[in-house]
């Protein structure tokens, strides 16, 4: 009885783990801003996906599309302090470079398939 109960719990745990993994694959992709870096980069998403940025640095960063030399105006969000988030939705296929306006060496790319 005890063994059967433990077995049921094990099966349930495996199912939950698999289910969680499946849900994670469908959830919005995330980019962490930490130690003045966008991680991971580049990130690959399907067209129409949302990409959420979360700032883990205790300072304001921005997520601004384009490059410091050539802004394209597609999106620009401020991440004011630790824990701040911003989400961008990209419907068109292509490569979307982005950077931080305050720290221009911080750069990343989103590849929309």
């Amino acid at each position: 009885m005890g063994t059967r109960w433990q077995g049921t719990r094990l099966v349930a745990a495996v199912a939950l783990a698999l289910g969680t993994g499946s849900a994670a694959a469908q959830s919005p992709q995330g980019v962490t801003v930490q130690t003045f870096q966008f991680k991971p980069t580049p990130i690959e998403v399907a067209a129409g996906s949302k990409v959420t940025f979360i700032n883990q640095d205790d300072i304001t960063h921005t997520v601004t599309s384009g490059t410091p030399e050539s802004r394209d105006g597609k999106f620009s969000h401020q991440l004011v302090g630790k824990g701040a988030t911003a989400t961008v939705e990209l419907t068109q296929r292509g490569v979307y470079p982005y950077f931080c306006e305050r720290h221009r060496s911080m750069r990343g790319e989103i590849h929309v398939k």
Partner: protein
Amino acid sequence: MTHTFGKLVGAALVAAVLTLSAGPYFDPAQAQSGHAMTAMATSSTRAAGLRSGLNMLFQEHIYLAAAATGAALGGREAEFKAAAGALDANSIAISKAIGSVYGQGAEDAFLPLWRKHIGMVVDYTVGVASNDKTKQDKAVADLIGYTQDFGAFLQSANPNLPKSVVADLVKHHVVTLKAVIDAQASKDQAKTFATLRTAAGHMQMIADPLAEAIVKQFPDKFGG
């Protein structure tokens, strides 16, 4: 005449910095190898080696920065270029030290952040050379603002380093280096070297806590 001289020094500074940013760098590890070996030979622990290494790099930063600003203010262009080149090699060595602990990504992020404050010091020096108070004030304001960025970077890398504490320490670095530049501009040699010793000595206030925080964060790597 003073104004023309200031413009000349300013142009030389900008040109030299642009040239250096575009040019190849010599290998800082090679340049520092003699010092590193000395530190290794006299240190019995990796923690002590880390602390002495960081102290050496940060104090070198002060002496090379002062060599560059002194040459710039004195209109000695060749000397300035050489000093600025050595200063940048020191910047790369500091970023490699950061990278050796926190990885290539952190090293790549740290170097432009560190160089940014050197650019602001250049701006201040140009402001002093050209007697442009507005430029000086802007450079000081930028440097004070920069201390928050630097504090945030180190806090993010190492939670044992509170942002406000790091920012205050770096602010003192800015203030003590500014005193050196002001003394150089006034051609007061005694004051120049007295402020230089103060500025260099202060760097231990940054290097020691940084080393201690790294050891605390990675006891397996640096303990014992």
